[in-house]
């Protein structure tokens, strides 16, 4: 049983108009870099805010660094570096003043790191936050979150608004100062190639449910996209079938393991197998979250490593 930095069981958040979280089960191992993917409105931000205790869950349970999100949310905030999606801080305060304002809350705050990030990201330290560009605001948010000495970073779309040079620098310091020190990084993103480079685990959320949670290595090694042609194939189901797309004559299936068995079954139904290929993260994401591939095996869709 691996130690988890974040764990949730059937987490729910119900707003008057929408079930933002609909039975979310997350398992984020300690020390992992975990890419949290989902379309706009899928529930990423609600998940992060609920884990931090900034939003009260309607049902279910969750633990962050072993602490209960309902009872211990102050302790969670103390040990977690958080960058919000909106990147909003007090507008009238400069970065220098914000640092002074923030550092007292965090027992493990590092002035050395704050100084390093101020220089590295070329942050205007004395201009009011409200007068900064979106990119510079984002940098200030990162400086504050990354200097806390936090055991866990929860970053909601951390690279939005950053130019490619700063994005690259951010990735470097995340690895150098945080991942290499065994800290856990949980971040949401729409940039799949970024996620593929830095993440070890990914989770895909849609309509408040986790559709898939897997090691990227598992996806590379075991997931297969099977393309077949054949008329009147029966409806197929199975625990390893992640998504399927059916056109008139051509069908595409994404299977999570034992592709050979699945292919044999298809052949048994009279299908002609055209291609069996490995997949990248983009194909998995489009297969699961894209509207074109409707097959969802429900809660059985998560593939957890048993390690």
């Amino acid at each position, binding site marked *: 049983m691996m130690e988890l930095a974040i764990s949730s069981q059937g987490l729910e958040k119900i707003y008057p108009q929408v079930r933002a979280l609909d039975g979310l089960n997350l398992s984020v191992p300690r020390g992992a870099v975990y890419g949290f993917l989902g379309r706009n409105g899928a529930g990423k931000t609600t998940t992060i805010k609920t884990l931090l205790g900034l939003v009260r869950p309607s049902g279910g349970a969750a633990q962050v660094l072993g602490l209960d999100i309902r009872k211990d949310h102050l302790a969670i905030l103390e040990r977690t570096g958080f960058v919000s999606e909106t990147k909003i801080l007090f507008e009238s305060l400069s970065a220098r003043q914000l640092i002074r304002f923030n550092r007292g809350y965090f027992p493990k705050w590092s002035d050395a790191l704050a100084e390093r990030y101020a220089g590295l990201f070329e942050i205007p330290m004395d201009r009011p936050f409200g007068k900064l560009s979106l990119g510079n605001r984002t940098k200030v948010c990162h400086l504050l979150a990354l200097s806390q000495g936090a055991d866990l970073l929860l970053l909601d779309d951390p690279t939005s608004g950053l130019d490619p040079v700063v994005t690259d620098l951010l990735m*470097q310091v995340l690895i150098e100062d945080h991942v290499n020190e065994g800290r856990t990084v949980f971040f949401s993103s729409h940039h799949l190639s970024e996620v593929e480079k830095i993440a070890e685990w990914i989770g895909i959320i849609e309509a408040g449910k986790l559709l898939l949670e897997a090691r990227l290595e598992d996806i590379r090694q075991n997931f297969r996209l099977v393309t077949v042609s054949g008329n009147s194939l029966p409806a197929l189901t199975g625990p390893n079938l992640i998504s399927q797309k059916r056109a008139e004559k051509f069908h595409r299936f994404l299977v999570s393991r034992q592709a050979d068995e699945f292919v044999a079954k298809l052949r048994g139904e009279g299908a002609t197998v055209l291609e069996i290929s490995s997949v990248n993260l983009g194909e998995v994401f489009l297969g699961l979250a894209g509207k074109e591939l409707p097959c969802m095996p429900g809660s059985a869709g998560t593939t957890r490593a048993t390690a």
Partner: protein
Amino acid sequence: MLFHVNTSSGVPIYLQIEGQVKHAVAAGALKQGDALLSVRKLAAELRVNPNTVARAYQNLESQGLIRTVPGGGTYVADCQPGLLKSEKVRRLRPLARQLAVEGAQLRLTTEEVVKLLEGEMNGLGERR
């Protein structure tokens, strides 16, 4: 050493790192006893997960190309110690087969494929 990774190539990142270390050794850019960056340093440099680099290094070590001194860094190993010629040939055969198949599919002649290979070998430089 200047390594780089490309996420859109479809080749797993650890294989890209493995391939680039092998190429650097074959081309003489890395020599016996040269130190490689530590897993953590190379991960930060490439902006990839440290586990990915660790995996590439493990594979290279199990192939005898590099050796890790516990707590003392990672080095290019002495010239493939104890590796029999037959073992070297065995490792290369799948690649040779793939080259032959692709060549035949593109309707290249044996001479053309061999010439191509010669060009690549010569391109590796004077170290060999």
